[in-house]
Structure formats: structure tokens, C-alpha cells
């Protein structure tokens, strides 16, 4: 825990290809396993989407990555630094944006940024904070109390505070939850710019469309990492065959279909229903009687990411609940 760790120049971080490389991370609260045997690798400069339903262990995993929680078992590195023994050094180089806004509501925008700059030892903190305010487009609001900002501006400020000390890795926990579409779009544009500058970004979300904006994704449900890779890899890896049916009343149709053997996944999708199965032949056999029904239009379909996730989730639920 030497001072050197606080002001380590960027170049002196270990030169490793992966910004995050963890193996077998597990964490329980009481007798409840919240993260189970999780392994993942995030290459430097990538935007890595961390997807999963609420309560699946995303926040817990991110906290273990930046040393806020101690894993029960497992090991790994962040930026080449050991997450178990070098948490303090990691903190200097990682920007963590919490799920809930956690800057000081009773300090102004600029005071918050100056505080961050000072704690991280950013040279000329006042100037740096002012520059950050301008960069964030918060110039007119720098004296406003952070607590009185709207959701979108809070999120901007939080991100601005994260990147102020020039971290190497950003851990963003559901940064776009409760933010309007325009702000979300701008946010993602900014993330891509940061990644283009060489920053690695791990971003958790439960918006499917945001997954498509990531270079790679990982899907976690019930504490278990179920799939990872590019979106195409994940979809292909699921081995799912899908049909889409329209023309009928989706809800009763979905109920009827989901009871059939050979059908592993049924998801109403607007006026149509997605039907999927892992065995193409069995799936076709199962839907054969329905294809005779008048009014129904059947179409072979490519599985979407959402189909895959719903399927993964229902399978893991069967296995663990």
C-alpha cells in the first residue's frame, strides 16, 4: 500500500492483454449463493456488456472486481493487479459508477468533481473539475447541487466523475436505468469514444438493445454466467432453432405451445409469437399440427438475442430452482 500506487503512471501498469481476467469467483450472503463459479475475460479496449435479470448477481460481481466485496473463492486480476491483494492499487485506476447515484447530493456539481480530483491526486484539481464540467456540458449548472439534477444529468455527472481521474477501466453498473432514450443514445456515443481512446468498459444492463452496442457480452442469471462472446457467437452458441407465428391471438397460442414437448422457448412478440427449440426436428414435429390451422402464418426465423436469453434463463432456472 505504498504511495506509489496512488500516483502510478499509466505506463507502469502490468502489460497484460486482458483488463479483467477472473476465474471461479463465488460469493454468498448467508447461505444464499449470489455468484457461483464465475469466470470471465475482458480484452483491453473493449466494451463488454454484462447482462442479466435483476438479482442475478451483476452488482455483486462488479463489486468483487473493484475490491468492494471479497470473493469467498476464486481469483483474478483487474488491469493485471490481483483483486484479492491489490484492491487499493486497482481503485486508483478503475472508475466505478454505482447503480444508485452516489455522489454527494448536498454538494454542487463542481464541488463533487473537485473532491474526486483531489482524492485521486489529479494535478490542478480546480482546473480539472472545471474542464470536466465543460466537457460534460454542465457549464451552466456547475453551482447547482448534485441532488437537484434530473436523472439524465445525474448520470452524466456520475460518469464524468468516474473518468475525471483518467482510469484505465470503467465499471458501469446499470448506468442507463431510468434515463430517457435521447440521454441513453448520447451516453453510448460517449462510451464508444472512450473505448476508442483505449479505455476498457464493463457495463451492466438489462436492456437488450444495449447489448447490441457492445463488442462482447456476458449473460448471467441466478449467479451463473451462462454465455459470453460476441452477440453472434452467443446466438449461435445457444443452438436454438426458432419459428415465428402470426395471425392468431398471441397469448392463448403461446400458452398452448409452451406445454408441448420439443418446444423449449415461447415468447410473445407483439402480434406474433417466437417459438424455439434445441432439436430442430422435434420442434417441427411439435408445431406441425398448428401449421395446419387456418389463419396462422408460420415462418422460419433467426433467433434473436432476447430469445436466447429467455431460453438460457428458463434452462438455468430448471437446473437450479
Amino acid at each position, binding site marked *: 500500500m505504498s504511495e506509489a*500506487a*496512488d500516483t502510478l503512471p499509466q505506463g507502469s501498469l502490468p502489460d497484460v492483454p486482458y483488463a479483467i481476467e477472473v476465474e471461479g469467483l463465488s460469493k454468498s450472503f448467508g447461505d444464499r449463493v449470489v455468484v457461483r463459479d464465475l469466470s470471465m475475460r475482458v480484452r483491453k479496449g473493449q466494451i463488454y456488456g454484462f447482462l442479466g435479470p435483476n438479482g442475478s448477481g451483476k452488482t455483486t460481481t462488479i463489486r468483487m472486481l473493484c475490491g*468492494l466485496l471479497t470473493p469467498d473463492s476464486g481469483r483474478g486480476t483487474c488491469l493485471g493487479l490481483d483483486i484479492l491483494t491489490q484492491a487499493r492499487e486497482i481503485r486508483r485506476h478503475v472508475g466505478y459508477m*454505482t447503480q444508485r*447515484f452516489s455522489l454527494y447530493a*448536498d454538494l454542487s456539481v463542481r*464541488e463533487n468533481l473537485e*473532491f474526486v480530483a*483531489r*482524492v485521486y491526486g489529479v494535478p490542478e484539481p480546480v482546473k480539472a473539475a472545471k474542464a470536466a464540467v465543460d466537457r460534460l456540458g454542465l457549464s451552466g449548472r456547475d453551482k447547482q447541487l448534485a441532488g437537484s439534477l434530473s436523472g439524465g444529468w445525474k448520470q452524466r455527472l456520475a460518469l464524468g466523475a468516474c473518468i475525471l481521474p483518467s482510469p484505465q477501466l470503467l465499471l458501469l453498473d446499470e448506468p442507463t436505468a431510468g434515463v430517457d432514450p435521447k440521454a441513453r443514445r448520447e451516453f453510448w456515443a460517449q462510451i464508444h469514444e472512450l473505448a476508442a481512446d483505449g479505455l476498457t468498459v464493463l457495463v451492466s444492463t438489462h436492456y437488450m438493445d444495449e447489448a447490441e452496442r457492445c463488442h462482447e457480452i456476458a449473460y448471467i442469471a441466478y449467479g451463473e454466467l451462462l454465455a459470453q462472446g460476441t452477440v453472434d457467437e452467443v446466438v449461435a452458441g445457444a443452438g436454438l432453432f426458432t419459428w415465428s407465428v402470426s395471425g392468431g391471438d398471441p397469448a392463448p397460442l403461446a400458452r398452448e405451445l409452451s406445454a408441448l414437448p420439443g418446444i423449449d422457448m415461447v415468447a410473445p412478440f407483439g402480434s406474433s409469437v417466437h417459438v424455439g427449440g434445441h432439436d430442430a426436428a422435434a420442434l417441427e414435429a411439435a408445431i406441425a399440427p398448428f401449421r395446419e390451422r387456418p389463419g396462422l402464418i408460420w415462418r422460419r426465423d433467426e433467433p434473436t438475442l432476447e430469445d436466447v436469453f429467455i431460453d438460457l434463463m428458463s434452462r438455468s432456472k430448471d437446473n437450479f430452482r
Partner: protein
Amino acid sequence: MSGAVAGLFRRVGAMMRKEMLQLVRDRVSFATMIMIPLLQLVLFGYAINTTPRHLPTAVLAYENTSLTRSILAAIENTKYFKVVSHPTSAAEADHQMLAGEVSFIVEIPAGFERAVRRGESPSMLVAADATDPVASGSAIASLNALVDTAVKRERFAVEGGPEGSGLESAPPAFQIITHARYNPAAVTQLNIVPGLLGTILTMTMLIFTALSVTREIERGTMETLLAMPIRPVEVMLGKIAPYVLVGAGQALLIVGAGRLLFNVPMIGSPGLLTLLTVLFIMANLSIGYTFSTLAQNQLQAVQMTFMYFLPNILLSGFMFPFAGMPVWAQWLAETMPLTHYLRMVRGIMLKGADGSDLAQDIVALGAIMLVAMFIAVRRFRQTLD
């Protein structure tokens, strides 16, 4: 390693700055810090000043002689007593006291004057309603001298030994309540103001630091703070430092107002008092900070503070005389910063004590502070586990 020190100062400074901004922005808390000392000082100071005066008194006299009239006149002259009734029986007098109509019963037995003339040193009973010992204490203390002078003024030639023996003027014996001995009317205020200095500092310092960590946890800001490269001890120092200034300001306010309003002297060294006050403030801040790391939420922190504050007030010697307490209570009191600080303040302000006189208390106070700081830093969790 000068880089390490610079880093430490930088982070503590950042923390301190942040705390001050939050403190100043929290208008209510800030106003409280200034109002509490003034309010308490004025209330306590003037309450002590006025309550013991003109206390309702019943006189149960079994004889009416020039001596007894002279004694009663002298008693009323003290201004502490006001004779409001002349019951004719002990039962009637007792009833009046039970009903709260009188605070004192002065009972003069039959044959009192004759007995005095004979030098038999008869007893005149003064029963005090001791439910409010502070109120009655100073009144009782005044009796000793005043009745004595009344007897002398009457110039009763005492037929026994006129001088020499302690019972020379054969004054009536008094029922003395323990508190009276430590609460002589003349010095009560002087004792109270330095005592208030200690209790007010204890209360405000404890409350504000006790809230400081739990507030961060409750508002969710702790997670961001923990994710920053700042050490627990740096967080603590940064949070404590602004309150040292606040506490010093409060102390100045109390000592200044005490001098202005009650003429409380400063016989010893103001510099030494300042130094020891800072030590005392830091001890309390460390304890408050420890509570802050133990409590789950702000309400619990406040409750813990009061749990701790109460015995401090009761056992430190502020409310009740230290020497009158059983040994176990004295030992308990020795673990409390207030006990030591009260000795320091009273010693320095009223008696002109210097550092060597107070060495034991200084060491004890320093030790208490270090222990509390150690626990606080150890208790401060660096993770959310």
C-alpha cells in the same frame, strides 16, 4: 516517503474540505452548533442563579423568644428562604412539605433560648425537601453562616466557655445534606460554567461525528467513497478535523459568555486550556466516530450517543460530586473524557492549575483518545462485506 505524506495530507484535506462544505450547507446543524452552547449557558447559568431564592419555608416554633425571632429574621435575610407558613404541629408541617407547598421546615424546640444561654448547644432542625438537591443545597449552605451571625448579633452572653472550643457560640445543629458541602452558594455558578463547557462539547462533538459515517452509508455515498483510493484513517481524520474547529469555536463562545454573563475567572493559562480543550474535543470526536462505525443507521448512532452521554453527565462530577460516588462508579467515571476534562477546566479556570498538576488527567485523556481512534479505524470497513 515525503510523497506518501503529501498524498495523505492531500486526501485528508480533500475529505476535510468536503465535510466543511456539507457542514456549512446544512444550515440547521450549523445553527444548532452555535445555539446549543449559548442556550444551555444562559439557561443553566440563570436557572442556577435564580431558583434557590425565596424558597417557601414553614416555621414550626415551639417557643417565641427574641432569639428565635432574630434567627428567623436572619434566615429570611439570606433571600434564600421565605417564611410562608407557621404550622402548629409537626404533622401539619410534614403535610405542607409533602404537598410541595414548602421546601423547608425550620423547627425550633421548646426551651431553645434557655438552652442556648446555658451553652447546651441545642438542635434546631432544618428539614429540606431534597428532591431537588441543587435548589436546596445552596440555601442550606447559607444557613451555617447566617444563623451563626444571628446568634452573635443577639449578643447572648454564652455562659459556658466563651471562646476556644468549636462550639463556642453554641449554634443550633443543622441537618446537612451532602450536596450542600460541594455546592456552597457563592461558587455554584463558577463551577457550573466550566462544567457546561465540558458537557456541551461532549454532546455536540459526539452527535455530529456519530452521524458522519452512518450518513454516508444511508445516503449510498459510502460505496463511491470506498471505491476511491483513500484509507480509513484518512477518511476519519478528514471527517474529524472540521469539528475540531467547530468545537474550539464553541469553547471560545462558552468561556467568553461565561466571563461576560457570570464573571467566571480565568486564573490559569488560557493557552493550556486551549490545548487541553483540543485534546478533549478529539477524544470525543474519536468516540463519536467509533459509534458511527458501529451503528447501522443514523437513528442508532444518535441512540448510542445518548446512552453514552447520560452516564458521562451523571458520573463525571458535573451534576453530582465525584467524591460522593461509590468506588465502582468512580472507576467507571475515570474512563470518561468528561471526568478528566472537568478537573482540567475547573483546575485551570478557577484554581490556576498548571500542566504538572493535571498530568494524570492529561495522560488519561490522551489514552482514551488513542484507544477510541484505534477502534474506529479498525471498525471502519473497507469493503461492503
